[in-house]
C-alpha cells in the first residue's frame, strides 16, 4: 500500500463514518399512557437513576416492592449511574437507555419529543403537578420531577446565635455585617465556597427570581441583561464577590472538600453555605454521624425583601421521563406516576413535593412562619436561556465564571467587578442578538 492509497482509505472511512453519525429520531410523538387497570400492566422495566446511594442501601428496592403491591405484574430494576450526566448522554445515542430515566441536563428541550414519550398536555398535568412547563414542548409534557427544592442558605443556628444574630438578614449588606460578626465573635468560617468541587458555586444562579420576586425571572434572563443594575444575578454575584473580598470565606478556597464540609457545618466549624433545601437532610445526617445536634442546621432565604417579604423559588430536581423506545411504556408510566404521587420519595428527602396540594416539608416550616413567598418560575423560555448560555460560553449553570469571580474577589486575578460583570453581560446580550436574528 503506498501513501496515496492509505490517504484515500482514511478519507473514505472518515466520510463513511460521517454518514453514519446521523442516526435515530424516526419514532417521534409516541405517548406513554397511564394504564387503566393496575393489575393488567406487565413487563420488566429498567429505571436509570443518579441516586446510587439509594440503590446501594436498598431504599429503591423497598420502593419497588411497595410499587409491586399495586402493580403485581410489573418488575422494576434499577440501574444506578455514578457519572449520570456523562454516561447517560452517551447511552442516549442508542435506543437502550432504560425505560424510565432522569432527563440529563444536556438534552436540549426541542429534542425531548425524539427521546421521550409524552405524558399528556400541560393543561391537564399542571392542575395537579408543579414544574410542568420545565418539560413542555409544543403543547406536550415529557417529564415530571419527583421532587422539588428551594435554594437558600444552610446555616448553623448555634454559630449564628453565638455571634448575636437572631433574625434573618433582610439585605445583602446586613448579611455581610452578620458574617463579619461571626468572624469576629466565633472561630467559625463565616462562609464556605466549596470552590474546588465547583458545582456548589453554580447554585448561586438559583438566586434568580428571589431578588425580583418575579415568576418571569427566567424569561427576563432570555430577553434582558442578567447583570444589569439591580438584576437578580448581579445582586447574587455582587454578594458572593463581597463575601470573598471581605475575607469572610475559608483561607484556601482552591482545596475545599465537599464531603468534609458536611460534618464541619454540623459541628459549627463552618457557619454558612449557599445550597438548597435538598442539602438539609445531608447536613443533618452528617450532624448525627459527627455527634452534633441535627436541629442546629437551619435554612434561610436570600437576604432581599420585596414589600417586606422574602421570596424563594421552587425548582425541580431531575425530571423523570419514559424512553420513547421502551417496550413497556404503560408499565414505565405507571412507575413514573406512582413514584411521583405515592412513593413518599419527596417526603423521605425532606423535599418539596411535586404535588401542588401537598403540605410543605418540615425543613420549610420556618419559611411558612415568616411568610416567605414561594414562587413557581415560568420556564417557557428555559430552552432559550440554555441556548444563549451554551452559545455565549458564559455558563450561568457551569462553575467557571463563578470560580473566576471568586479568584477576582480574593485578588488572585486582577480587574474590577464592574468590568467582569460587564464582560459577561456583553457576551450574553451579543449572543441574544445573534440568536434573535
Amino acid at each position, binding site marked *: 500500500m503506498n501513501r496515496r492509497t492509505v490517504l484515500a482509505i482514511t478519507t473514505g472511512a472518515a466520510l463513511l*463514518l460521517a454518514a453514519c453519525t446521523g442516526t435515530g429520531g424516526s419514532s417521534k410523538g409516541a405517548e406513554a399512557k397511564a394504564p387503566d387497570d393496575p393489575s393488567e400492566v406487565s413487563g420488566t422495566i429498567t429505571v436509570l437513576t443518579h441516586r446510587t446511594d439509594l440503590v446501594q442501601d436498598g431504599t429503591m428496592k423497598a420502593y419497588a416492592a411497595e410499587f409491586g403491591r399495586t402493580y403485581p405484574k410489573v418488575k422494576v430494576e434499577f440501574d444506578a449511574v455514578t457519572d449520570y450526566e456523562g454516561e447517560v448522554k452517551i447511552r442516549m445515542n442508542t435506543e437502550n437507555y432504560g425505560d424510565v430515566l432522569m432527563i440529563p441536563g444536556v438534552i436540549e428541550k426541542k*429534542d425531548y419529543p425524539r427521546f421521550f414519550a409524552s405524558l399528556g398536555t400541560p393543561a391537564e398535568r399542571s392542575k395537579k403537578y408543579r414544574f410542568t412547563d420545565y418539560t413542555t414542548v409544543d403543547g406536550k409534557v415529557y417529564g415530571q420531577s419527583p421532587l422539588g427544592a428551594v435554594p437558600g442558605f444552610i446555616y448553623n443556628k448555634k454559630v449564628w446565635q453565638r455571634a448575636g444574630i437572631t433574625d434573618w438578614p433582610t439585605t445583602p449588606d446586613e448579611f455581610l455585617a452578620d458574617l463579619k460578626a461571626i468572624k469576629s465573635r466565633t472561630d467559625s468560617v463565616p462562609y464556605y465556597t466549596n470552590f474546588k468541587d465547583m458545582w456548589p458555586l453554580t447554585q448561586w444562579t438559583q438566586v434568580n427570581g428571589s431578588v425580583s420576586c418575579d415568576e418571569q425571572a427566567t424569561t427576563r434572563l432570555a430577553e434582558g441583561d442578567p447583570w444589569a443594575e439591580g438584576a437578580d444575578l448581579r445582586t447574587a454575584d455582587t454578594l458572593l464577590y463581597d463575601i470573598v473580598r471581605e475575607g469572610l470565606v475559608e483561607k*484556601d478556597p*482552591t482545596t475545599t472538600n465537599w464531603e468534609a464540609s458536611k460534618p464541619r457545618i454540623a459541628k459549627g466549624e463552618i457557619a454558612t453555605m449557599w445550597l438548597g433545601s435538598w442539602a438539609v437532610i445531608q447536613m443533618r445526617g452528617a450532624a448525627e454521624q459527627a455527634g452534633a445536634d441535627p436541629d442546629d442546621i437551619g435554612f434561610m432565604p436570600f437576604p432581599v425583601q420585596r414589600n417586606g417579604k422574602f421570596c424563594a423559588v421552587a425548582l425541580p430536581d431531575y425530571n423523570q421521563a419514559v424512553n420513547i423506545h421502551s417496550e413497556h411504556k404503560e408499565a414505565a408510566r405507571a412507575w413514573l406516576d406512582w413514584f411521583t404521587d405515592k412513593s413518599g420519595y419527596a417526603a423521605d428527602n425532606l423535599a418539596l413535593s411535586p404535588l401542588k396540594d401537598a403540605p410543605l416539608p418540615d425543613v420549610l416550616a420556618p419559611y411558612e412562619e415568616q411568610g416567605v413567598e414561594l414562587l413557581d418560575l415560568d420556564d417557557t423560555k428555559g430552552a432559550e436561556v440554555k441556548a444563549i448560555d451554551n452559545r455565549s460560553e458564559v455558563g450561568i449553570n457551569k462553575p467557571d465564571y463563578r470560580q473566576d469571580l471568586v479568584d477576582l474577589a480574593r485578588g488572585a486575578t486582577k480587574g474590577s467587578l464592574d468590568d467582569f460583570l460587564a464582560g459577561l453581560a456583553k457576551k450574553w446580550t451579543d449572543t441574544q442578538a445573534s440568536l434573535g436574528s
Partner: protein
Amino acid sequence: MTDTTEKAAAPPAPGPAVPGPAPAPRTARLWRGATPWLFLLAPLTLLIVFTYAPIANMVAYSFTDWDGVSPELHYTGAGNYTELFTRSDLFEVFWVSGYYLAASVVQIVAALYFATVLSFNVRFRNFFKGVLFFPYLINGVAIGFVFLYFFQDGGTLDSVLSLFGVHTDRAWLGTPASANTSLAAVSVWRYLGLNFVLFLGAIQSIPGELYEAAELDGANRRHQFRHIIAPGIKPVLSLTVILSISGSLSVFEIPYIMTGGATGTETFVIQTVKLAFQFNKTGLASAAAVVLLLIVLAVTWVQRRLVPDDKVDLV
C-alpha cells in the same frame, strides 16, 4: 473445516529445507504471503478501531455543529475552524504550557543526572531506580488526589516545611503563577521516572569497554559523560524532547483533576473538553482537537528537521 486444515498443513512443504524441484503450489504461496498479515490482524484491528476510526470520526465531526447528543447535526463546512482561528482567546491558554515546558527542562536534566549516576556502581542502586520509577506507575487520578492533600492549607507540604522551621502561610494553588508551578512540579514528579528509564536503558546499551578504555586514557566521570554518554544517547534524548514538548502542549489529567482549570490553570485540552462537554459544542471541540494534533505534528516535524536523527557512532 477440512479445507482449512489442508491449507494450514500446506505451508511447511515449500520451505527451503525440503528438497524437491517442484515450485510451491499457488495456494501455499498465497498463504505464505498472508501469514504476516494474519499475525498483524489483531493489533491492526485494535489500532484501526481505537485510534484511526475515532480520529476519522473526530475529523468528520469537526465540520459539523453537533452538540454531542442530538440526532440532528448539520454540515457547517470550515465554520468551526474559522471560529477557532478568529477567537484569539482560545489560544491564550497555550501560555500555561510554558510552565510545563520549563518543567520538562528540569525533568530532563534531573532524569539525565540520575540515569548517569545510577548507571555506575552506586550503593542501593536498584532501590533508587525503583524509587525514581515508582511514581510513573501510579494512576494519574490517584496522583491528583494525593497532591490535593499535599498542597492543602496545613497539608503535607506545609507540615514538612514547618519541620524545617519554614512557616509559609500561602495557598499553593491560590494564584495562577503558584498554582501552575505547583501543578508542573507534580507532573515532573510523575514523569521523571519514565525519562529516567529511557535514559538508563540507552546508557546501559553503551559497551562497557568504552568506559574502561576512557579511564585508561585518564578521562574522569565528566569527560566520560561528555564524550561517551551524551553522544551515545542522542537519539533517545531527542525523542524525549519531542515527547516533552508534545506532552506540554497537551497537558490534561493533573490540572483537570486538581483544579479543574480554575485560577488560570486551564490548558488547551481542558478548554477543549469544556467546549465539548460543558457547552455542548462537540463540533468546535473536535476542530480544536484536530488543530492541536496538527500543532503537535508540526512541532515534531520542525524538531526532526533541526536535529536530524543521525546514526550513533561511538568508535
